[in-house]
């Protein structure tokens, strides 16, 4: 591939690329993000290619694996252009039918369309599906349009035009002022204004400066950065280069966790392609600006998402945070000024440059501008990535986009911000999503994890779960975090096991205060949040566990028992056969009884008991009724009918 040496050549190349593409030629786009690949997208792509070959359509149809559009719940996702017909949960077996019916006959395969669970109506196009319709997809919307392994695809949708604009039409002051005006805040969790961070580095006298992409996404249930880096790696590179130009840096790093092999692969390939095209390296587009970037794989530590720990790890040492009294944009990587921004923050930069700060600030609230991608997971109908304007309410996200709670269950809380965040209860569902609003509610924006919980979730156990995550992920350097988390987890575990005692809540609060006030880095300072926020909104659950030895959500194994109601049991023997512990006593025509000594509380009997009987119940906070006497266990014939 010849090098592109000027912005004019870049435009010419772009127009060439676009003109070689016939917009009316059918293109089958299959999501090749990690989620869809796991549910078989690789086989679907292979099947499409084979089928198109078989039906003699090779020159008439394109097939491509694209970035993740976000509707992971219904993957593998297939979109057929130019009509934008959207098929969900496509399997390799469906492929011949799609090719024959949709590509050849231009007809829609109804059974693969989205069906609204409430109205039963089908949606043919992506834009008609409520999950997508209610979003504002300025960033992630491009994923399904491009093959992340193709720089030409990125150029065809206007890629690298922001870079050319910055290099040839703007001064670095103008770029900085545009970013500051946009009030873009860090999407990784802290919400620090990107412009101010850049400005600090820009003004630092050191001639050597660095720019870094933080792709060490580690919050349980969060995967928006993965989708962006896997699905549109050039957009991250372009943003990074604009940042580098602004602050005067010539060297950048993409720190990506090694658990994201596809992101590593696509980012590395994007760098190679950009170099080959003269979009990276020396004298970029003939502008005189030099910039190189390297991918660094994290070794698997959650704490390395913290800026100073990430930089320590990049330097080749164990990833431990260091004191931040002087900010890392002044003294960062190897002691040099370093701008570290999250993947999503960098992805916003080219958009702001191309469309202007005024366009960007039309989305969002007064203090939180633009959009935010959340990974909506947990007890929610539509699991996936959603991009919404800041200021949207939690209720809109969960019900209009997420489709509510499955199985007719009741919503209980939504956890935002990962292990550093907190749980927000139902009464705050009208809360507008924004950095300050979420913090005020005792949670935080974090990187965008959003875990929905229903009535069956025990909030004490949720706090225990996150502390259990953190106990392995604290680096162990400072006492309040290492020892504080150790004791917090011990006490929470005790409470969920039914061994809590008076004074536990107060001791947890005292430990939390010390961890918040005295820990070295944000991991320790925010570690008690899962406990503090659940205590704030669900104190009654803590008290029930401690005082009544009762788990209100009927979830903590140590506090519940399973019992078969002898009035309801029809002696069908299903639970008896399926109990893995052999704890169900009974037989044909003999009412079943659970041997409480043998029961491991796995819940199998509860799940398999036919709903028309619903004989198995969970009991908490009161004694299990004594088993009915042997002689009364025979079922009378009349009852059997």
């Amino acid at each position, binding site marked *: 591939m010849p090098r592109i040496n000027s912005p004019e050549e870049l435009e010419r190349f772009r127009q060439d690329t676009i003109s070689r593409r016939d917009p009316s030629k059918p293109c089958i786009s299959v999501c090749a993000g990690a989620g869809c690949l796991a549910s078989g997208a690789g086989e679907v792509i292979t099947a499409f290619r084979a089928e198109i070959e078989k039906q003699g359509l090779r020159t008439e149809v394109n097939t491509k694996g694209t970035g993740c559009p976000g509707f992971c719940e219904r993957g593998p996702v297939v979109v057929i252009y130019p009509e934008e017909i959207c098929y969900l949960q496509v399997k390799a077996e469906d492929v011949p039918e799609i090719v024959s019916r949709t590509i050849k006959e231009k007809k829609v395969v109804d059974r693969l369309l989205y069906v609204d669970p409430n109205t039963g109506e089908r949606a043919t196009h992506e834009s008609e599906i409520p999950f997508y319709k209610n979003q504002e997809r300025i960033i992630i919307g491009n994923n399904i349009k491009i093959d992340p392994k193709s720089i030409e695809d990125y150029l065809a949708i206007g890629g690298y035009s922001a870079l050319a604009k910055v290099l040839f039409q703007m001064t670095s002051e103008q770029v900085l002022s545009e970013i500051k005006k946009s009030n873009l805040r860090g999407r990784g969790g802290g919400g620090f204004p990107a412009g101010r961070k850049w400005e600090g580095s820009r003004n630092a006298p050191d001639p050597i400066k660095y720019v870094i992409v933080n792709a060490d996404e580690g919050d349980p249930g969060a995967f928006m950065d993965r989708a962006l880096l896997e699905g549109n790696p050039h957009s991250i590179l372009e943003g990074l280069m604009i940042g580098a130009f602004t602050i005067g840096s010539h060297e950048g790093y993409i720190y990506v966790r090694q658990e994201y092999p596809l992101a590593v692969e696509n980012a590395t390939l994007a760098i190679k392609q950009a170099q080959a095209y003269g979009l990276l390296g020396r004298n970029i587009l003939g502008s005189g600006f030099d910039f190189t970037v390297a991918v660094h794989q994290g070794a698997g*530590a959650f*704490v390395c998402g913290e800026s100073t720990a990430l930089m320590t790890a990049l330097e080749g040492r*164990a990833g431990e945070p*260091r*004191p931040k*009294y002087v900010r890392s944009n002044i003294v960062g990587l190897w002691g040099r000024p370093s701008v570290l921004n999250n993947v999503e923050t960098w992805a916003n930069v080219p958009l702001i440059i191309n469309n202007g700060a005024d366009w960007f600030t039309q989305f969002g609230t007064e203090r939180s501008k633009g959009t935010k991608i959340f990974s909506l997971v947990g007890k929610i109908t539509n699991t996936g990535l959603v991009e919404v304007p800041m200021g949207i309410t939690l209720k809109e996200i969960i019900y209009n986009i997420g489709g509510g709670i499955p199985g007719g269950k009741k919503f209980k809380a939504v956890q935002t911000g990962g292990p550093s965040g907190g749980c927000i209860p139902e009464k705050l569902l009208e809360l507008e999503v924004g950095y300050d609003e979420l913090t005020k509610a005792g949670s935080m924006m974090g990187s965008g994890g959003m875990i929905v919980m229903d009535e069956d979730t025990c909030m004490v156990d949720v706090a225990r779960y996150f502390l259990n995550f*953190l*106990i*392995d*992920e*604290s*680096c*162990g*350097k*400072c*006492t*309040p975090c*290492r*020892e*504080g*988390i*150790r*004791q917090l987890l*011990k006490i929470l575990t005790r409470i969920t096991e039914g061994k809590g005692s008076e004074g536990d809540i107060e001791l947890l609060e*005292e*430990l939390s*205060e*010390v961890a918040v*006030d*005295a*820990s*070295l880095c944000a991991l320790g300072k925010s570690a008690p949040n899962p406990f503090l926020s659940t205590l704030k909104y669900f104190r009654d659950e803590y008290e029930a566990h401690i005082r009544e030895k009762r788990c209100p959500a009927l979830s903590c194994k140590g506090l519940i028992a399973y019992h078969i109601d002898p009035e309801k049991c029809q002696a069908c023997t299903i639970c008896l056969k399926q109990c893995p512990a052999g704890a169900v006593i009974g037989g044909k025509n003999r009412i079943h009884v659970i041997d409480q000594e043998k029961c491991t509380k796995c819940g199998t009997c509860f799940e398999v008991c036919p709903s028309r009987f619903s004989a198995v119940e969970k009991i908490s906070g009161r004694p299990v009724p004594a088993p009915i006497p042997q002689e009364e266990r025979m079922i009378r014939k009349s009852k059997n009918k």
Partner: protein
Amino acid sequence: MNEIILQIDGKEAKASEGMTVLEAARDAGISIPTLCHHEKLEPYGGCRMCIVEAEVSGSTQLVVSCVYLVEKNLIVRTRSGKVDRIRKMILELMLAHAPDAFELQALAGEYGADKNRFEKEASFCIHCGLCVRYCAEVKKKNAVGFVDRGTRREICFVPEIAAKECWNCKECFPLCPTEALQAAFVLTKALISP
């Protein structure tokens, strides 16, 4: 070096630019407790015992004095209800691991820390890192290091290096605030089972 005037516990203190609050306080004869600090070593900020209140233009924050640098018009309070509460808790958390360490007991007396507050897990080490950092920074041998992370973090001698370097050195032993018990123990263990 520019001279900086700051206030520590109501007294005026003189310090030079680049000094930490801990150094300035010690120069002024004000004592701040530390467990991971050592004059020959780079500031670490691990034990958090030296936490103090630092007030700059009316806003107060908690900082660890071994790392925080002096600045003009800084007002430092080395004792307050909050600071004492934090130090007491830190001591109690450490005493669960090293209940008989003299240094911890002496501080426990001063801050009213109860060594039985938390269930004992006698691992002795309080993770001050003095041995690890001394060996790396002063002796430049790296014979002892930290392994693992979080609550599983522990010090460990590298047998190959320790077998060569440690017998004639052992300078880390007296540095250990929990009386070198664990250093000796880990060393022996590492040497007999390389």
